[in-house]
């Protein structure tokens, strides 16, 4: 009971936070708009100050356990004829984001690209509009999902979790996420929904759709009281946001299951501590998340069939060795073993010992193990 109480309280808090966040965003956008307005009124050329996202300005913050931007900023001024265009694009996006946030209408990156054409603000291609979106994220220090711009990629979720939609037309509607065995897509409505209730005690993020289906079939959700999330490779930011919310709001521990290779290891790392690409954003990381496997050391331990690493696999290993987050503990150890054995194993490799080997044997063993680190 006591536990539930806490959960509810957290929930209320977050609900309030969320509304504040939305309000904050709107007032922030308004503030920028007003500044531009004032400049024009005074016959001055308006400008934006944008945190510099070049490699030299990305630093690792040990306290936050993630990459953050340094203090360098660059100026985008409408005075400069070569920046006037991108200045206008940025302002338009702010205007568009404001509209989306007010109307609570979600759009995709591609939508943004096409929407611009209605306003005579032309983007040469989607790449250009995607860049401007990141610029606005940096200016506002808010992820694009906050202003209702979502990526195309979808990952999915399954398990005993009840949510309450907040998007227009579904407000107040609830849904339990264990009713459909294919899982539920993690889209804008899911990310913005209230997390109402769950019996689960654990979140398992898994890299591959095939294994996700196997886990549902094998009723891993029931057997291990868990919510299962398919990240679909590198976890999209909406999925990482949801993982963070499940951890922070519902107090659920997060474990990650990936292929036994350097990319798998890094998928886990990004969920745990973010990516350099999103160094301008905070609140996308689950620092307490645990990488459960497949480890390099598991390959030998569980006698998994392997395939040899490619040149680029090995190069990636050495690249990550230089990353400040791979300087100690498990992360460093596993990376070094990968380099040593120069072989990798996929999650499906367990099928050698039977289709349910992974859920019956490997998973319980690793879950037990993970409690200790």
């Amino acid at each position, binding site marked *: 009971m006591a536990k539930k109480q806490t959960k509810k309280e957290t929930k209320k808090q977050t609900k309030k936070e969320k509304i504040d966040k939305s309000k904050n965003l709107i007032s922030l956008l308004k503030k*920028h708009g007003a500044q*531009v307005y004032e400049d*024009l009124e005074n016959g001055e050329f*308006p400008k934006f100050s944008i945190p510099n996202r070049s490699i030299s300005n990305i630093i690792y913050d040990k306290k936050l356990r993630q990459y953050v931007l340094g203090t360098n900023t660059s100026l985008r001024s409408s005075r400069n004829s070569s920046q006037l265009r991108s200045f*206008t694009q940025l*302002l338009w996006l702010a205007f568009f984001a404001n509209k989306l946030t007010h109307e609570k209408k979600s759009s995709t990156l591609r939508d943004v690209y096409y929407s611009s054409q209605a306003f005579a603000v032309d983007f040469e291609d989607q790449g250009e509009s995607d860049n401007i979106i990141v610029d606005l994220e940096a200016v506002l220090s808010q992820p694009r999902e906050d202003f209702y711009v979502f990526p195309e990629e979808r990952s999915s979720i399954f398990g005993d979790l009840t949510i309450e939609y907040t998007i227009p037309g579904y407000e107040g509607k609830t849904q339990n996420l264990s009713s459909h065995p294919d899982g539920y897509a993690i889209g804008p409505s899911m990310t913005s929904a209230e997390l109402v209730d769950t019996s689960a005690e654990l979140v398992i993020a898994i890299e591959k759709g095939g294994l996700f289906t196997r886990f549902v079939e094998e009723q891993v959700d029931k057997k291990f009281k868990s919510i299962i999330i398919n990240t679909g490779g590198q976890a999209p930011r909406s999925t990482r946001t949801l993982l963070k919310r499940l951890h922070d709001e519902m107090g659920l521990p997060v474990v990650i299951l990936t292929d036994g290779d350097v990319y798998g290891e890094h998928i886990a790392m990004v969920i745990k501590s973010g990516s350099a690409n999103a160094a301008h954003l905070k609140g996308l990381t689950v620092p307490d998340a645990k990488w459960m496997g497949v480890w390099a050391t598991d390959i030998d331990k569980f006698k998994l069939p392997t395939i040899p690493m490619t040149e680029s696999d090995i190069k990636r290993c050495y690249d990550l060795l230089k990353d400040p987050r791979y300087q100690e503990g498990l992360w460093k150890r596993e990376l070094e073993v990968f380099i040593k054995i120069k072989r990798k194993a996929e999650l499906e490799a367990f099928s050698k010992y039977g289709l349910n080997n992974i859920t019956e044997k490997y998973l319980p063993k690793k879950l037990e193990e993970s409690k200790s680190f």
Partner: protein
Amino acid sequence: MSSKEQFNQISPSEFFYRNRDLAGFSNPTRSLYTAVREFVENSLDACDHSGILPNIHMTIKAVDPEKPDPKQYILTVKDNGPGIPSKHVPLAFGTVLYGSKFGLKQARGMFGLGATMAILYGQITTNKSVKVKSNADGKTRFDFEMLLDIQKNKPVIVKKQETPSTENGLSVSICLEGDYSKAGTKIRDYVYQTSLITPYATISFDDPKGEKFHHKAIIRSMPPAPTIIAPHPYGIDVETIRRMLVDTHYQIPNVDDKMIEKVRKELGMSKKKFTYGEIMKKTEKKWKSLSRPVRVVISLMSFLEADFEKLQRIRIEDVDLRNNKLVYWDYSTSQTLVAEMDVESHYYKQLANTVQGESLTHFLSKRFQRVGPTAALEFCKFAKFKPETRVGNMTDQELVKLSDALQTYEGFRSPDPTCLAPLGDGPLEKGIERRFEPDFMAVVQRTASAYSGFPFVIEMGIAYGGKIETRGTTVYRFANRIPLLYDEGSDVVLKVVKDTDWNRYKVKNDSAPMIIVSHICSTRVPYKTVGKENVADRPEIEKELRLALQFLSRKLSGYMSKKGQAEMAKKRANLYSKYLPLVAQFCTELSGNKKEPNYKEMIKEETALTNSDGSLEEVKKNG
């Protein structure tokens, strides 16, 4: 070794018949094109030299249009020129190496050789006669039909007929084997480019496919006609000097009855018999008014102490200046006699001058262009000749020395360009402007220069943008108002254009809509081949071309940078008028204001800034 070789002389016609490749009649394609050129150029030359604005009409018609190429075509070129007097027509068109173009002045053709070659070629390939219609006096038109007797180098008149007509001009029509499907492009290019460099001419062309090309005259005035002038010292060789000496050199006149009559007349002593003393007395009085031959005869008489009767009886055999003796034959006694000459007498001087020819300085300053008395004296100092050296006395070695010195001496002024007929900046500019309608153009006429004593003038024009449709640099080459179409690659003009670093002049060479028109005028254009299609890279010519092109490129560069600036400024202004209203609109909505901010002044300021630092209008007009 037995020699069975036979030595025959061949006529010029025969020679050209055997070597027709040399003159550009190597195959049906090339031959048709060359024939067109020869006739059109003859017509233009004729009009130029008589100061008539040319109106030339050319037709090419297939004899049997159904046949595949190569086949027989009838080529007719008609002009409004002076025509050729009827007595000259047979020789002019029926003889090789007969013409009116052997003087030292600029003309398209050199000898009028090509037209006859074309006729010859036509006759060889089709065995048809040439038809010439000429009206030289504005009253009668003479129509000829002729064949060439190749071995005798003589015309054979097949038909001749007279018709009254008031229309001056010449029309030549030949039948020849040609290939219009291959030569057509070149011929049309040739007609077009000729009209470009002859903007005062109207040229029309009806082609065998029924297409009509009409290039109307753009200007109504002709550039001044060239004049025939004396040679420049740089362009001379020993043989030429020798010929000039023969021309100038005064011979001892033949003392015959006619001559004696002349002497009597000039002295005013026609009727009666006079004594030697009376004659000399009269001579003293009248010396100044006497003509040169008369003075010479009287000088002879003075040493012979002869009156007119004695003079009739003798023949002068030698004037021996070395021994001061006069040798003569006396008919009455039938013997050779010798008379002493008094060196002090002024009659001696007269004789000496006559026999030895003029002094070197006199010869140089009278017979050459650009050599005055002072220059002649200085040249003599340079060449180590005595100024009073008599040219008639010079030995062969001395002549060689003179010829060499003339070409090495640097003190002569450059050749007289009055024998040249450049088009002039005005007409060239007009021609380019009308034909291409460019955004920018500039022309330059360099001052005259010379190579090996032949004067030349470079004219050049550059045009950029506007209605020019070609991309990359297109070079139109002309020499003496003839377009050069073949063998582009090896031409000196192309070389100079290629050597230019266009980036320096802010021109993107590959994509620039640019045209260069180059015109070399000279009494002798140094063609690389007999076909007259490319100009050899003489250093003097190359230098002048380079200077002309540099001058024009700098002008173009000025235009390009102004244009660049103006375009940039315009772009900037456009940018602001496009984006600032959007910025205003978005920030108004974003900030929740009702009224848009007052930003219009800012656009105005930006636009004003643009106009003050060079608008396009200003740039366009200025070359």
